[in-house]
């Protein structure tokens, strides 16, 4: 019995050891008067790690560049980085630590919705600011959170007419089964019908599903003009691969699939499919070209090839923040908030500004690309200038934001 207990104890200790080693430690740096410290929260393990670890690199690159150019009003930006391990309770804990213990006025970070929600709640409770460079479906806004990743509606609205004109008006929506793709499908339905087309089918796959044969059979039955595929995780590569192998000869577009997915699945399966968002590596914006060069120089080519809009948004956000800080002159929450409303800054993603109408969504351009055989994007469409963020699109919310 005693022996059994000892062994159970040993097993649980092994377990604890593993999770401790995975946890890592947050770096804490003392900030003097000539420094402006802020928090960065990204996941270094778990489901969000793949994208967020690269996002953190992008944000730190921007910090380094700004400091090298003399900082903000002579003060250096100091980032205190924390790892939330893709675990929302950890995200809450780390956000509290940064806001209350390190007393940072704002935090930048998170791509995965659960982490964003957690940090946002802490920011609201403590009257602090939170910059979330993550794509949103809209409809979630908070006076303390600035979404800088763009809302899907903005890009879906550009994509549907483009695809309709090119291939026809009948769309089939495929998504992973969670809030975000379900919302996109609703937006798509409204947009397609506006253009006289039909949403001929809408299917959602269980999260992490890798058998897409059933949904492919259903798509074949409906024979749409194009497919709007917004799947995530392991399903992405599985869907694109099986679409080819099952001989699904119908154009595919997505507002989720990015450089990171294309490079993972390889050009063979992504080739010829479309994607839309506010930035792709094919952007000819000189700031974008320079950003990718600097990124590759610092972190290597393999990471550079994965850089997508969300990762770039982390980089752009730091420049937006620096500009607002310059304008505010001080960095308490209120003056920073006031300064943000009209601030506009040139970034790899074009002019980046917080929409004064909607308050806290950054405005964006829209791009549509086609993936090439080398898994790199080729620009096929760009919007005429900046587009307003529409977190509460008229066609779904004719009376504006529900109260």
């Amino acid at each position, binding site marked *: 019995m005693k022996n*059994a207990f000892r*062994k*159970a104890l040993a*097993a*649980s200790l*092994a*377990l604890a050891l*593993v*999770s401790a*080693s*995975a946890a890592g430690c947050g770096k804490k740096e003392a900030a003097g008067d000539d420094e402006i410290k802020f928090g960065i929260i990204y996941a270094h*393990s*778990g*489901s969000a*790690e*793949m994208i967020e*670890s690269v996002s953190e690199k992008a944000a730190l690159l921007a910090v380094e560049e700004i400091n090298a150019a003399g900082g903000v009003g002579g003060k250096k930006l100091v980032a205190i980085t924390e790892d939330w391990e893709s675990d929302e309770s950890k995200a809450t804990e780390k956000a509290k630590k940064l806001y209350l213990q390190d007393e940072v006025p704002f935090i930048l970070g998170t791509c995965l919705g659960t982490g964003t929600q957690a940090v946002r709640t802490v920011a609201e409770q403590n009257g602090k600011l939170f910059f979330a460079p993550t794509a949103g479906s809209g409809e979630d806004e908070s006076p303390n959170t600035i979404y800088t990743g763009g809302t899907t509606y903005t890009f879906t609205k550009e994509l549907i007419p483009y695809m309709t004109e090119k291939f026809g008006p009948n769309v089939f929506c495929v998504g992973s*089964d969670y809030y975000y793709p379900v919302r996109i499908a609703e937006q798509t339905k409204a947009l397609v019908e506006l253009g006289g087309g039909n949403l001929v089918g809408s*299917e*959602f*796959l*269980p999260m*992490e*599903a*890798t*058998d897409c*044969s*059933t*949904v492919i*059979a*259903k798509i*074949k*039955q409906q024979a749409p003009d194009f497919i709007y595929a917004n799947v995530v995780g*392991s399903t992405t*590569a*599985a869907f694109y*691969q*099986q679409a080819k*192998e*099952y*001989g699904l000869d119908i154009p595919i577009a997505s507002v989720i699939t990015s450089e990171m997915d294309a490079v*993972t*699945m*390889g050009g063979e399966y992504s080739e010829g499919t479309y994607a839309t968002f506010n930035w792709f590596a094919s952007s000819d914006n000189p700031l974008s070209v320079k950003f990718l060069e600097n990124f590759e120089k610092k972190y290597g080519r393999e990471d550079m090839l994965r850089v997508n809009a969300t990762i770039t948004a982390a980089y752009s956000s730091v420049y937006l923040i620096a500009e607002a800080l310059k304008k505010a002159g001080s960095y308490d929450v209120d003056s920073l908030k006031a300064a943000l409303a009209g601030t506009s800054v040139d970034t790899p993603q074009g002019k980046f500004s917080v929409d004064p109408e909607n308050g806290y969504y950054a405005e964006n351009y829209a791009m549509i690309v086609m993936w090439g055989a080398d898994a790199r994007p080729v620009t096929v469409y760009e919007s005429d200038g900046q587009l307003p963020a529409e977190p509460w699109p008229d066609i779904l919310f004719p009376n504006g934001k529900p109260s």
Partner: protein
Amino acid sequence: MGILPIQLMNGLFAASTLLLCSLGMVIIFGNMNVVNLAHGEFIMVGAYTAWFISAVARLPFVAAVAGAALVAGLFGAVVERVVIKRFYQRFEETLLATYAISIIMTQIFRLGFSSMKKIVELPVRGGFEIGSMTFPKYNLVIVAAAATAVGFVCLLFYKTPFGRRVRAIRQNRNMAMCLGINASATDTLSFGLGCALAGLAGAVTAPVKIVFPAMGASYLMDSFSTVVVGGVDSFIGTAASSALISESTSVLGGFMSEVYAQIIVLVGIILILRFRPSGLFAKERR
């Protein structure tokens, strides 16, 4: 062409994948009574080995499959020697130990290969046609692999001295030992064999799945429910339950949301186990 024949075929392919991924568990859970929460991680080891051999070392896919079975099997044998053998007949401790192993394995692969998803290229490309239906040719490879693997383990368990030793230990461990059977060596071999089958499954299915350190988690519950419905220690029962589960998921999924289809099948599994707790194909025991 209606959707039903397509879904029946898709169900067959899904059943082959499920069966391939469950066979190792029939041995380890069914015959050795070890609930191995690291089952999916051995599949992951197989998938990574296949990726390494085919994508990095650029060797033929057959070598990747053989290598994956070998690596996962040897690794399994070592794990049995070092950890599992200390916990036989102790249910809770086995759960804890195998859970720890699964986390350790995931972390090791995360540190060694990063979390970036890997793709194993399809060794057989393109589709084949039945009437107006197109299916990937590689699906035939999976069906053949599953059939071969079931045939192999059935022969091994029912026609060889090794198989009889394993079954004798399962029926009466002490008596088997009293007849001179080296039970602990047999345990190591059968645990290794179960892990080798998991590795084989990981390699064969790698080209249609995504390879990453946390991939194992998704296999565990599927394999577990399949094996339990199949009657725990029966290869043929597991083959039948794979077919039942996959065909019903596919056919239902053809006519409704796949998420609902999965829920209905899960409820069906619960009902089956409510009325036949030892599974559909459990042997009548005296």
